[in-house]
């Protein structure tokens, strides 16, 4: 079979698997977040941690719970990493330095999982499983909770209540993430991913040399890293490492895990707003963006333009033999379209066009299909903008699902859409302006600028992948990227919850002949176009100096 046919068939298998679970998982998640019953284990959990599961929170309280939980998480994880040398299973690793511990703590709490460290030489097993992997679960569940609260804002009327964060968080973990993670962790181990508590063991190789065989609870972390769209690798090489991703089967499983919740959540949305077509329309817009990006990256990597790829005859630099070009491009598109940031190939060594598209994929705001929860609420914000633009064209007060988009709402939408570019471009501009910060670059010229842009795009969009040539473990990058991650996560969450609070208070407007239908192909087109135009207008000048210049070189 030709590589093209195999690559296309692999894509078909992935899409069929996603289609099969779409309805059951989407419907199940809708039930999870609407059920009035607490499981016995959940009731016990609420008693132990002393939170009232039946309190219905205002958007401000909901937000304070998110922020309080996240602040506690940052402090806890920071202390954990600083003190890891005093804890068991540290493998003799030192406590993590302050700037790196801050960056890593923020990174994992913000669902970014940017890694300025190499796992195998920095983190002991306990820090990995009880520090970092716990955040893989709960940061994903927090994103999911916020998305559900935003949906409630659209569904509910004449109320100032959006639900209970602690309940949404707990149910997301207990009923969705943990069961899926448990099952698929075993699937990954069966496929060859390691799961042990061994220290590195030095062996004598066949030729008489020595090699350290590393160990660790890999699969239990790998699975939630993908499922929670986190992306922080157990090892430096992330999902390119054979112990994290041993073959093309585990590779496809991991891509499936990355996409399954963000995709199925559109079904949940359709069920919750009692109009499934709305969910399909959001999914269609996500699929258009993902599909175009996938076609672009695959075409660029297969046709391999550029000085080095042409000299080599392929884009094998930074790719593993067991994943061919197609499996690498599929992973790259999915990981950057979802705010995951795991990599099975090194994006820095992609062609100019391929690397540029995966960067743009993040700059769209992580909505194709986006991170767990964050992809959906990001897409809803853009849908509201699309409705507003359409309203301007016909001179009519715009509404989305019967909720009026007035001055207050569109102000919040505008702030939401400006916060991420602000964090990205300001951080990158400072980094590009000083000799000290430029000293971290591996490549020079446009490729060097791409390294900086990619890093801040990755941080501000909570992706976490990198053009990894950048030596990011410096005080400036650790601090600035930490701030970018915080803005990209929590300022956006605050704005979107404020938006939900405002929508929930409204009395719905009845549908009339003049209402713009938001489930038709026309709107899907308008919606995807809006996503591209917003990102294009914001980032084209920066992209032109970086990846576009590389691609045209």
């Amino acid at each position, binding site marked *: 079979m030709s590589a093209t046919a195999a690559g296309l068939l692999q894509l078909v298998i992935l899409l069929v698997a996603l289609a099969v679970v779409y309805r059951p998982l989407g419907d199940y998640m809708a039930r999870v977040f609407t059920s009035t019953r607490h499981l016995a284990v959940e009731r016990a959990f609420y008693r132990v941690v002393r939170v009232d599961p039946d309190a219905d929170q205002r958007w401000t309280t909901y937000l*304070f719970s998110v922020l309080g939980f996240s602040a506690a998480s940052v402090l806890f994880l920071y202390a954990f990493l600083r003190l890891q040398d005093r804890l068991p299973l540290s493998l003799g690793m030192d406590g993590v330095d302050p700037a790196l511990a801050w960056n890593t703590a923020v990174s994992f709490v913000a669902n970014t999982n940017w890694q300025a460290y190499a796992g195998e030489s920095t983190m002991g097993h306990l820090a990995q499983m009880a520090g970092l992997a716990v955040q893989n679960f709960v940061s994903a569940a927090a994103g999911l909770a916020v998305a559900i609260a935003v949906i409630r804002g659209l569904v509910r009327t004449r109320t100032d209540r959006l639900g209970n964060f602690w309940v949404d968080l707990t149910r997301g973990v207990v009923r969705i993430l943990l069961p899926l993670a448990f099952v698929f962790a075993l699937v990954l181990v069966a496929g060859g991913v390691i*799961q042990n508590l061994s220290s590195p063991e030095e062996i004598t190789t066949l030729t008489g040399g020595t090699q350290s065989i590393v160990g660790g609870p890999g699969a239990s972390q790998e699975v939630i890293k993908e499922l929670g769209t986190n992306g922080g690798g157990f090892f430096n090489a992330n999902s*390119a490492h054979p112990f994290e991703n041993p073959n093309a089967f585990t590779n496809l499983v991991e891509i499936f895990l990355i996409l399954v919740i963000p995709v199925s959540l559109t079904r949940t949305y359709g069920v919750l707003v009692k109009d499934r077509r709305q969910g399909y329309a959001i999914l269609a817009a996500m699929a258009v963006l993902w599909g175009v990006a996938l076609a672009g990256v695959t075409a660029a990597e297969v046709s391999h333009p550029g000085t080095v790829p042409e*000299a080599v005859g392929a*884009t*094998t*630099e930074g790719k*593993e033999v067991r994943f061919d070009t197609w499996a690498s491009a599929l992973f790259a598109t999915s990981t950057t379209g979802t705010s995951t940031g795991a990599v099975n190939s090194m994006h820095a060594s992609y062609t100019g066009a391929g690397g540029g598209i995966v960067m743009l994929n993040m700059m769209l705001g992580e909505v194709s299909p986006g991170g767990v929860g964050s992809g959906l609420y990001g897409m809803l914000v853009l849908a509201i903008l699309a409705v507003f633009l359409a309203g301007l064209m016909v001179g009519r007060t715009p509404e989305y699902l019967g909720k009026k988009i007035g001055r207050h709402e569109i102000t919040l939408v505008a702030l939401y859409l400006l916060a991420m570019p602000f964090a990205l471009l300001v951080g990158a501009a400072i980094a590009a302006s000083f000799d000290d910060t430029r000293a971290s670059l591996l490549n020079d010229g446009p490729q060097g600028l791409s390294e900086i842009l990619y890093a801040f795009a990755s941080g501000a969009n909570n992706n976490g992948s990198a053009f990894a040539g950048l030596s990011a473990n410096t005080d400036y990058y650790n601090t600035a990227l930490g701030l970018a991650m915080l803005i990209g996560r929590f300022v956006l969450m605050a704005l979107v919850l404020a938006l939900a609070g405002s929508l929930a208070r409204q009395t719905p407007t009845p549908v009339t002949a003049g209402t713009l239908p938001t489930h038709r192909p026309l709107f899907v087109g308008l919606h995807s176009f809006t996503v591209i135009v917003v990102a294009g207008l914001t980032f084209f000048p920066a992209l032109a100096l970086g990846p576009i210049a590389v691609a045209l070189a």
Partner: protein
Amino acid sequence: MSIGALARQTWAGLRVLIAFTVVLGVAYPLAVTGISQVAFGDQADGSLVEHDGEVVGSSLIGQTFEGEEWFHSRPSAAGDGYDPLASSGSNLGPESEELLALVEERRTAVAAEEGVDPADVPPDALTASASGLDPHISPEYARLQVERVADARGLDPSDVGRLVEDHTQGRILGVLGGERVNVLELNLALEELG
């Protein structure tokens, strides 16, 4: 709402986090480890391979093979080459002059070593993998090395060639990933051959 309210929520958050840490950070990974060790012990421990009763590596982790009597792995950017304590790609970009020079240097070296035209050196022999630990090479690169290895070991090239064919793995289910040869397994089989 006030700082007091935020402080209360942070305190609640800390309680929730500690409870989750016990469940998700200790119980869950230990349960997965326990089941994995029982049901999939070999894989869970890293798919180790033995030779004469000694562990000589993992079939998933590539090794450096130097000398004419071995099939060689790809170039590696992990430490000094295939160092599992420093997994990494080169991260050099498509226009990097440094990478271009490296590629040309490798092409000349491999062509001279295998006695072939520089244009016939396959891409994976010229480039470093993403992890620096890639256990595989392409079937083309393996076939390219047959003559040299057979010569160095005093074996019949057709026997060594057959060994390469036997160790060429196709796409999984005929569809997934790339065609490949596991270098450590191939070299082990070579040792058995004599």
